[in-house]
């Protein structure tokens, strides 16, 4: 009844191809953006439930936004281009450590000549961190031209373990600290200091919104269609004139760039101090889960998947305590494992295409509501 596009006429090709062709969708999007950009800061400012404490912002929304960003990056590679990757944790680590290096000054001694870059401000550091991740992505993407499917997934693990080792072993990356653990520099953007939870949240939000829009438009365009052709059948794509070298490596580069930026944010904004273990293989699996549960080949799905995989265990963990059921943390955390695993299996069985497909189904139903045929 409410959600019906009757009377909305498209008069141009551009209007027909718009990201949100239905007016209600556009209104909903603007409302959502208004809420996250204006509503949440207001609520947090006046400490209105559930923003009374910092917990929701600091421990749920900030990691959710950052991991959504990383999931968008992985979705470009796996969901749109069909290249299975288990190395996302490594690319996050490259982003984080390189951003740290650029933020604290790079000094490469080259046979007497020293290549020195003075400490850069935070924003260019993060973006350069992403760029370095993109280069790493291209390097480890080259095998994808020959290796496919699960074999490629296991090959990307080589990247994962290799970079785990590099950042643990090469002290240059950690500025020779005795423990190999590094601290994020002061977060300063154009003279503004980002410290409070709400400022951190806004920072992540801006990054996520900008990159989500970029990604959405990228996958609708020429490059995105090449990726999807490769995903659906790479030999056929090659026959119709798509260069797999260019398309696949672009997918690796752009995906790793976004993942690298997410890694830098994870380190700088969420953790503050980190070690290679923060970007271990578990992170890679977590991201892959988000993409698959959320829906391969869907930007919206990346958000839904991130919400599910990140927030569900945290919520489950708190349910017994909130309800006052006396269970030991050991039992609860094991139960969280079991329930999360079972839910993943169940979701895959009932909806192998993830939340994005579920969302599409819901929209279809809503169109006909309340008079389905």
């Amino acid at each position, binding site marked *: 009844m409410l959600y019906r596009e009757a009377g909305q006429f498209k008069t141009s090709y551009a209007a027909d191809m718009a990201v949100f062709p239905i007016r209600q969708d556009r209104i909903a999007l603007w409302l959502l953006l208004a809420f996250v950009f204006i509503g949440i800061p207001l609520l947090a400012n006046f400490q209105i439930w*559930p923003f009374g*404490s*910092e*917990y929701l912002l*600091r*421990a749920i929304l900030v*990691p959710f936004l950052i991991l959504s960003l990383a999931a968008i990056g992985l979705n470009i590679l796996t969901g749109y281009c069909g290249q299975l990757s288990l190395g996302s944790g490594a690319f996050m680590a490259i982003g984080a450590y390189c951003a740290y290096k650029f933020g*604290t000054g790079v000094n490469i001694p080259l046979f007497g000549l020293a290549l020195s870059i003075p400490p850069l401000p935070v924003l260019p550091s993060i973006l350069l961190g992403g760029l370095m991740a993109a280069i790493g992505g291209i390097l480890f993407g080259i095998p994808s031209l020959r290796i496919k499917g699960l074999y490629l997934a296991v090959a990307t693990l080589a990247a994962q373990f290799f970079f785990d*080792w590099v950042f*643990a*072993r090469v002290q240059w990356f950690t500025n020779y600290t*005795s*423990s*190999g*653990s590094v*601290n*994020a*520099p*002061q977060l300063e953007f154009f003279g503004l200091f980002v*410290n409070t939870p709400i400022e951190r949240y806004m920072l992540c939000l801006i990054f996520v919104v900008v990159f989500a829009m970029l990604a959405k438009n990228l996958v609708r365009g020429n490059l995105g269609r090449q990726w999807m052709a490769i995903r659906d059948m790479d030999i056929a794509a090659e026959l119709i004139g798509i260069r797999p070298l260019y398309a696949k490596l672009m997918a690796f580069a752009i995906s790793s760039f976004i993942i690298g930026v997410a890694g830098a944010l994870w380190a700088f904004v*969420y*953790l*503050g*101090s*980190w*070690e*290679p*273990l*923060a970007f*271990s293989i*578990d992170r890679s699996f977590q991201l892959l889960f988000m993409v698959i549960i959320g829906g391969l080949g869907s930007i919206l799905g990346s958000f839904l998947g991130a919400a599910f995989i990140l*927030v*569900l265990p*945290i*919520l489950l*963990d*708190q*349910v017994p*305590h*909130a*309800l006052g059921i006396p269970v*030991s*943390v*050991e039992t*609860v*955390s*094991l139960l969280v*494992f079991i329930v999360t695993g079972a839910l993943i299996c169940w979701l895959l069985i*009932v*909806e192998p295409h993830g*939340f994005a497909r*579920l969302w599409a*189904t*819901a929209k279809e*139903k809503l169109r006909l509501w309340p008079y389905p045929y």
Partner: protein
Amino acid sequence: MLRATLFLAAAAAVAMTGPAVAQQNEQFLPSLVYRTGPYAPNGIPFANGVIDYWNMINERDGGINGVKIAPEECETGYATDKGVECYERMKSKGPTGAGYFSPLSTGITFALTEKVPGDKIPLLTMGYGRSESRNGAVFPWNFVAVGSYWTAADVAVQHIAKEMGGFGSLKGKKISLVYHDSPYGKEPIAALEARAKQHGFTFKAIPVTHPGVEQKSQWLAIRQDRPDYVLLWGWGVMNPTAIKEAAGVGFPRDKMMGVWWAGAEPDVIPAGDTSTGYKALMLQHGAGKFGIHADIEKHLIGKGKGQGKADDIGHVLYNRGLLNSMLGVEAIRTAMKRYGNKPMTGEQVRWGFENLDLSAARIKELGFEGMVAPIKLSCQDHQGADQARVQQWDGKAWKVISDWYTADQKILAPMVKEAADKYAAEKKITPRDCSKES
């Protein structure tokens, strides 16, 4: 399917709203634990000790000076991001927020070090964490009480020297460090290198990748290299595996010494007979039962309220959990002397830590006689003690085999200062002036 998802979402929303009812006159104390996952065998006994001491205080004394302790555990699984989430979840619970945090993980300690100054909550990292956080002027919120990794490294070298017949005989010897490849395992390297330079022994660091289930090549290399002594800086399953591999390549176990995190029952029992003779440092206390255990048995175990299994009471990590809680509770008690008998805020607890003065008489009164030496913290010195002993596993129990060693401040103090200054410069911290603190 759609309906089920909507239902789940609704259930999640309901779960979020459940407000925890907090008593007004309670001291909220959080405990970051890991009772599952790869490091659970070591995490469980420590967590049991921590919670048993608090519960015992509630049962025996009715709380700290009448203020009941409200404990809550949060499972971190030894993962940094989960630890941060737990911290955020628990830091402002209770009437005055969390009293202090003890993460029992070097990674989580590093991450929380960045967060506690903003939230004004002390971090009690007894025998782990940042060694340079001894400097209370730069790290006002970290308390690496009783000993740091650098203390351990220094004492270990002193003991080896003593076994070999003095520092002079270290010259030309080979000492290898088998370490957990993480900030935890890397912390001692700087201190050991400093000693190596001073005494002229060859120092070699051999990393073992987390979690340390495969160490064959490391031990084959040791067999070929034939070091005179091996230091083991492991945690979790890495320790028994290392001892077994050492036995496999025929490296004598009595030439192996673990740090105090590699010297508890879960580290040696799984390795069976092969661990007989293996040595480890003690963070002052060792295994065994002391005065405090009688109270625990009377007030908790007897009533069926204990977390720890009856056999584990008196094991190394359980005792360390007790000690950890005792320091925290005594800090709160100290703070109450100044601020009154009510729940303390993190800031007040910090004052309590900085003015904590446990005399021998007080330690005896608390039932910890024989477990710790007197300790006194101050605004400048957040460590308070620099002593350790060495224990040896005789196949059934840990036996103390050495006298007290004191780490050499001539070596460590400049290192602490340098590292703390570097941190202060990096974070643009102006160290506080301890002479002006009251």
